[in-house]
């Protein structure tokens, strides 16, 4: 085993990390001779707990960072998911399959599903999109920002309503990437 026995500091660092990450609910760790298992209260502080990250039992003492978010094509990008809003409750996390990518709002503004009122929507659930296709518009101060598909695939979820205010980092759509 390449692993050294953990000392108390290492354990504490892991535990601290769990404490800081607002969305870990359970953690199982086998580490050399050490087994550590932690659960946290649901819905105590902060945002709704995220889905369990616990992956392979061994080897990964600290879970990998959340699956990379899709980079929207618009000017501003939101690479890190925001620590979900405590209040709006609108930007909770979304569970994704391995081949799915999440498109988040790159800025605060108003979400439009179609190029103009009454026109057909850019995309619908089940529809195919090519990489770079316009998915929706986020308007901020009369500036219409086209949000483009980060990858080709099928739209599996639309998480917002037409005309809705979206906050920075809010999940808007999910695309299942072509195999």
């Amino acid at each position: 085993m390449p692993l050294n026995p953990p000392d108390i500091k290492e354990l504490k660092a892991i535990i601290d990390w769990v404490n800081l990450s607002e969305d870990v609910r359970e953690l199982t760790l086998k580490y050399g001779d050490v087994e550590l298992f932690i659960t946290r209260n649901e819905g105590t502080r902060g945002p709704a707990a995220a889905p369990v990250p616990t992956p392979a039992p061994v080897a990964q003492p600290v879970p990998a960072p959340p699956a990379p978010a899709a980079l929207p094509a618009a000017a501003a990008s939101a690479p890190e998911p925001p620590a979900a809003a405590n209040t709006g409750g609108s930007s909770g996390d979304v569970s994704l399959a391995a081949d799915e990518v999440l498109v988040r709002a790159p800025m605060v503004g108003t979400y439009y599903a179609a190029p103009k009122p009454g026109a057909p929507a850019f995309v619908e659930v089940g529809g195919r999109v090519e990489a770079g296709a316009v998915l929706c518009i986020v308007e901020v101060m009369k500036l219409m920002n086209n949000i483009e598909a980060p990858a080709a695939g099928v739209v599996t979820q639309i998480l917002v309503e037409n005309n809705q205010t979206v906050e920075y980092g809010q999940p808007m759509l999910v695309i299942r990437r072509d195999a």
Partner: protein
Amino acid sequence: MPEKLKSVLIANRGEIALRVVRACQELGIRSVVVYSEGDAGSLPVKLADQAICIGPAQVNQSYRNPQAIVGAALALGVDAIHPGYGFLSENADFAALCESEGLRFVGPASDVIRRMGDKIEATEIARRAGVPTVPGSLGAVTEFSEALSVARDVGFPLLIKASAGGGGRGMRVVETAETLEEDLTAIMAEAEVAFGDPSVYIERYLTDIRHIEVQVISDGETTLHLGERDCTAQRRNQKLIEESPSPVLTSEVREALAASAVALCREVGYRNAGTIEFVYDNIERAYYFIEMNTRIQVEHPVTEMVTGIDLIKLQLKIAGGEALTLTQEQIVVRGHAIECRINAEDPERGFAPNPGTIARFRAPGGFGVRIDTHIESGYTIPPFYDSMVGKLICWGADRDEAIERTLRALREMEIDGVTTTAAFHQEIVASERFRSGEFNTAFVADHLAARVSTPPVATLVAPGSKE
């Protein structure tokens, strides 16, 4: 005639965001707080009626991003934006953007912000309003002969600054008339060589000064003052402790100071809350206008504590088109208030900022103690913003009582897990010099210098304390 505000977007964070949320809630105004990813879950976000994430932790993409803030305000349909202090609060372009988008900006008109933000123009306005300014040249002087004549009028010691200089470069203090010609020749020649511009500013060099400012409020018609604040206890131009009233002013100077502040506001057509900053020369017992802050200030609570007047509510009412119903006679200063700005900084390591998690916070309580803070047990101070974690404001029937109450409350306050300046505040407030009221802007630096040689233990422990 505009309508009363129904909803306000608060374009700030930390304790001042919470301060405005509280005022809104007490007025029945819906409060919307914008926040960056660095502030998710913070107290103002939790306590506001609504909160909206506008960007990542970096201020240029969130709290200093006019588009994101105005965009959120428009998307949510609020009536007004309160900018707090710092960030965009004195940004004339931001205020103008609000105006053009039909949002009421809780502050003065954008052109007033612009004019008072230009130091030379502000000084000229002050002179027109008959407000004393630091004796010196009216703008830059390009000719040697003119400079010489101005310098002789101003008196000694005086300070000569190259117009094109800055950051301490191209500055010289002239102590007596004997070296004046020589120094002036030298600095103008240096400026010519260094900056390609020989012109200079000349002003009286003040060595023993206090920082005293006057709080004003105006609805555009009625302009009232709410007495002064004394902010002389500073460290590297950062205010540490503010109090109201000033411990040194005679009633004549106090009245003249207030009259100057009101005259300046009327001259510029000021509306909303504002602060006129002055230096007070301990030697001449004279005051001079320095600048105006066209926003609410960190230290506004000391004025609230002695006048009983809620300044943020007045700001919101004025922005909602209400006229002031107060008269100057109704504004009465009672007792004395002292504010300590508690920073997450380590005084023993050169006041290095000290972000981290506050394991446990217990606020001090009881009579005359006010806490304005966004921290709570378990709060992690983000590393992206300033280090102030809260303000402790103590009121007393007189300055002595305010001092004793401040010391008691500082001892009582518990902030575990992060080093703060609370113990240092205790040391300063308990010092003989502070108690005497007789000090100048060098006081804190002098205290720190003296501290290197004498261990601070004795002053840290208050009499009668067991700790």
